[in-house]
């Protein structure tokens, strides 16, 4: 039976139809006026401090895309961003490790070499980019962002419901078939759109506030003895201002 399950899972995977497993992501959001790195999904703002050791990089860039010294500090239950000067964008990478799903739906943080009945095993990595200032030029492919979502051009709509064109980059190049949702916080189960050959997806801006666009791309296994695939998840966050009070 387990073999049948694995065969079905592998077939579905080959068609790209398996729903994203280990669906959590990272993004930046304001907490008590400060910029915090969030780990979670939807309204689940989970324990990011516990996961600080998994954060492989955090970076800030100025308007000319020059790096700004950036770090994270623990402040109570939050991971707050500290920069040496005001950034235009900040980014982070979280290495979430290897996970296997058992036939009964449980996720275990081990490879399939240690979970022989796993229906799927994957290596998961989370990426995020937050826009913090006006864009004077196209956000480039950044060195630590293996998967990256960037707005096409420099203009961000100012009201919800307006279209925004984003491009999904994998290893710095546009990628086809990445699954993109417009609102990872308020509609994490929304039907994703797939990026075109040029990496572009056009979405409607969902919120007159924090927007977290998420892209998921599944690549081949980096260690076939442990995993069936690598799942890359990247978010792009930006904020639309509310009306004057």
């Amino acid at each position, binding site marked *: 039976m387990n073999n049948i399950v694995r065969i079905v899972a592998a077939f579905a995977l080959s068609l790209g139809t398996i729903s994203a497993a280990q669906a959590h992501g990272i993004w930046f959001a304001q907490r008590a006026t400060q910029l915090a790195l969030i780990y979670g999904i939807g309204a689940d703002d989970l324990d990011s401090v516990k996961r600080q050791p998994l954060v492989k990089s955090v970076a800030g860039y100025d308007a000319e895309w020059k790096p700004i010294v950036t770090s994270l500090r623990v402040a109570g239950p939050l991971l707050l961003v500290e*920069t040496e000067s*005001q950034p235009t964008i900040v980014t982070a990478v979280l290495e979430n490790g290897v996970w296997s799903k058992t036939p009964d739906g449980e996720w275990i943080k081990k490879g399939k070499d240690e979970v022989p009945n796993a229906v799927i095993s994957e290596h998961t990595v989370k990426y995020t980019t937050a826009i913090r200032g006006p864009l004077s030029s196209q956000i480039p492919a950044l060195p630590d962002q293996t998967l990256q979502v960037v707005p096409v051009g420099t*203009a961000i709509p100012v009201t919800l419901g307006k279209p925004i064109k984003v491009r999904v980059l994998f290893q710095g190049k546009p990628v086809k078939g990445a699954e993109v949702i417009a609102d990872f916080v308020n509609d994490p189960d929304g039907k994703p759109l797939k990026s075109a050959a040029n990496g572009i997806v056009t979405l409607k801006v969902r919120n007159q506030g924090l927007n977290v666009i998420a892209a998921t791309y599944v690549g081949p296994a980096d260690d076939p003895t442990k995993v069936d695939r690598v799942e890359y998840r990247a978010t792009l966050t930006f904020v639309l201002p509310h009306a*004057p009070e």
Partner: protein
Amino acid sequence: MGFNLLRAITLSGVPAMKFPFRSKALPMLFMGATLLTFQGPAYAHGGGKAEHGGVLQMVGETSFELVVKTDGVELYVEDEGEETPSAGLTAKLTIINGTTATEATLDSTDTNMFVGKGLKIVRGSKVAVLVTNKATMAQTGANFSIK
């Protein structure tokens, strides 16, 4: 020069508020430049008026007023409309002109004003402001673009 309005625009570039300027106030601005500010809602929590002839940027409850003068820069900070003593803060400016970025730490005073004597900001520059509370290390920033 037609700079009778100082327009503060949001992150994405749409006007969020307007400041009527009397002509005698214009010389206070460097070459009468229009300052475009970014990020954060305007008039959201009080303190939403420029009081020193500069351009105001609201970030949540915090307001930054940047005054560009011929002999330097002034920065005023308020929180919910109350002056925030600059002695309890640090302020750093990053001035980007083309591909050249210049960083400067402003000097605090005995009021809510920071000063950067001799700092030159030319038309077309981008100015990023980062203020850090010395006690809590809380950071608040804003971006200005000078046209």
